[in-house]
């Protein structure tokens, strides 16, 4: 007889809380720190109830200082702990950029592994919720460009918990990006027990024949809607949820691309220097002879996220993805 796994229907943000709770229970080296993560339970409530459950020595508010949060987390990680630091919004991570770039990502290399930094940085990212200036940045490529840190970005509750647990158990620094637009967008079954989703592995979330759409995080619902619209016109799509942004799952991309021969990449971040370009280079390296059309990118422009009265004009929409699908089909 199969034992049934107990699951709960959770939103993405509840799955993150659940993942944190699971690891706080399992390993006493795990601590959760950041601005307003304690009594307040985080400005989005991602750490709701955790201080009450695990006490102030495990889950605590820090002074308002991103460089301080990340710098001390690096130190704690070097000394046997597993810090999970929250940065309130990705747009406020910039003061910590130096600590990440000059220490978190280099410690293992420059000590030949004598000191390591097994830490996780969680940060909500992305536009589309009418937030004030700077609260909507999605500059993931600043971090995928950094040697020495992994970057993860779940789009649903199941992956959120499983990837977070993998990130916490990973021996190296991981930036864990949370699409804030999806925090409470829907619910899904999430196992109550501990489980992992492997880092570095994408997922084929829809199968088709004609076009491969590659996206992650908050762009997944956009990609899926476009795929649905395409299907109504007789075009079927593979949709890949990349899930890990560094290292990218090149096999899943190559496999799909070699089937469809056409690719559309969707991301919110500016086009220039964006992750789309790395995906194009993977296709170039693995699947050049399979290409039936140039690869299309649907991205933000090389501009800052507009003040929110105009933000929708810079976020990829299913209609813009459809335009790109037509382009690769009609080439």
């Amino acid at each position, binding site marked *: 007889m199969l034992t049934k796994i107990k699951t709960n229907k959770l939103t993405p943000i509840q799955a993150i809380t659940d993942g944190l709770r699971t690891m706080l229970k399992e390993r006493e080296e795990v601590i959760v720190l950041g*601005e307003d993560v304690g009594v307040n339970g985080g400005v989005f409530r991602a750490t709701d109830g955790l201080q009450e459950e695990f006490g102030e020595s495990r889950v605590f508010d820090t002074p*308002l200082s991103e460089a301080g949060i990340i710098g001390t987390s690096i130190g704690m990680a070097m000394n046997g702990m597993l810090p999970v630091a929250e940065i309130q919004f990705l747009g*406020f991570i910039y*003061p910590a950029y130096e600590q990440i770039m000059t220490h978190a990502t280099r410690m293992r290399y420059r000590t030949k592994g004598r000191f390591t930094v097994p830490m996780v940085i969680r940060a909500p990212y992305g536009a589309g919720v009418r937030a004030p200036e700077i609260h909507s940045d999605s500059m993931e490529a600043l971090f995928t460009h950094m040697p020495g840190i992994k970057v993860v970005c779940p789009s649903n509750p199941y992956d959120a918990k499983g990837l977070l647990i993998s990130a916490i158990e990973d021996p190296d620094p991981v930036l864990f990006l949370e699409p804030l637009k999806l925090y409470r967008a829907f619910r899904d079954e999430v196992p109550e027990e501990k489980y992992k989703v492997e880092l570095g592995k994408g997922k084929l979330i829809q199968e088709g024949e004609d076009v491969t759409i590659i996206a992650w995080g908050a762009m997944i619902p956009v990609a899926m809607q476009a795929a649905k619209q395409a299907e109504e016109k007789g075009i079927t799509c593979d949709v890949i949820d990349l899930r890990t942004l560094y290292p990218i799952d090149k096999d899943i991309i190559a496999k799909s691309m070699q089937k469809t021969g056409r690719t559309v990449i969707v991301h919110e971040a500016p*086009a220039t220097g964006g992750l789309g370009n790395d995906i194009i280079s993977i296709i170039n390296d693995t699947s050049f002879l399979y290409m039936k059309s140039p690869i299309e990118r649907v991205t933000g*422009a090389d501009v800052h996220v*507009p003040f*929110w009265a*105009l933000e929708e004009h810079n976020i990829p929409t299913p209609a813009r993805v459809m335009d790109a699908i037509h382009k690769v089909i009609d080439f």
Partner: protein
Amino acid sequence: MERNMEEEFPVIQIIDKEGRYVDGTYKNEISQELVQRFYRQLVCMRTFDQKAINLQRQGRLGTYPGFEGQEAAQVGSALALEEDDWMFPTYRDHAASITFGRSYNILSSWNGRIEGNLPPEGKNIVPPSVPIATQLPLATGVAMANKYKGSNQAVIVYFGDGATSEGDFHEGLNFASVYQAPVVFFNQNNRYAISVPVWKQMNSETIAQKSLAYDIPGRRIDGNDVLAVYFETKKALEQARNGGGPTLIEAVTWRYGAHTTADDPTKYRNQKEENEKHRQNDPILRLELFMKAYGYWDENWKDRIKDEIKKEIDNAVKGLESMPPPDINDIYDYMFEKPTWTIEQQKQEYINHWRGEMKC
């Protein structure tokens, strides 16, 4: 010997909670006109703030950070400025910004309108700073340029208690101290950074004492005493103008409301109990008691200005709600003086797509 910083940096007051003089130094400078100007502006700013909160509740405004309780700190310091001085406000400093010359259209930034960032022509009011403490080194830099140019303009920069934890706080103050830049660092210690109380933010008793590390003057003032705020800020600005370098002012105050309309303060403090206590120390009430005690009060005048203010704010809301739609070109056209080819191409592609969608 243990030093007691609360004693070394005593809270400076001119009038106490009951509205009575505790310090008569500036008595001769306090006129009916000045006091009425303070009072009118305080009431006006509170009316503005309450209106904004109501608009947000009705879905007519996006997330908004209220400042009720902090009016005296903002109005008093802004009125101490000379017309061509520079101001670096934060998101919570609309009372300071408006008092110094921003129009009520500042509110439109909370409706996602970039127009809400723009000061009137010729006014040196920088847009509200959202990333905490980042404006401090900028203000120091503006002050360094003023000094270099031999200009007489001073700079005021606003920031909260939480902002003192960022590296930019240190960097801004240290540079100002090293270059003796004409800048006043105006801290509003409202005792909370979202949910984090100041006693968890720092292990020092006061913010003013941080001036010791830079060997610059530090003042701790009652931020709900508009007279103390005004005269102390004026003094610091004069000193800056006269080559005396920067000053750190800590104005001790309190925000009654939530951090922003998206925040629930009952999660981290007893709102009812705290606010009952702090309402006794209300900045407007205090000035009113003072005016009554010293013969500056006029009931008819009060009724008249309340009517005027209501009309003014109602008009402001009308202005806000009759703005023309936002201009898509704004997304692209101000990234550089001349757009790069990538932006030009992206703009063209998007606008073509958008026209197609709109069928226009």
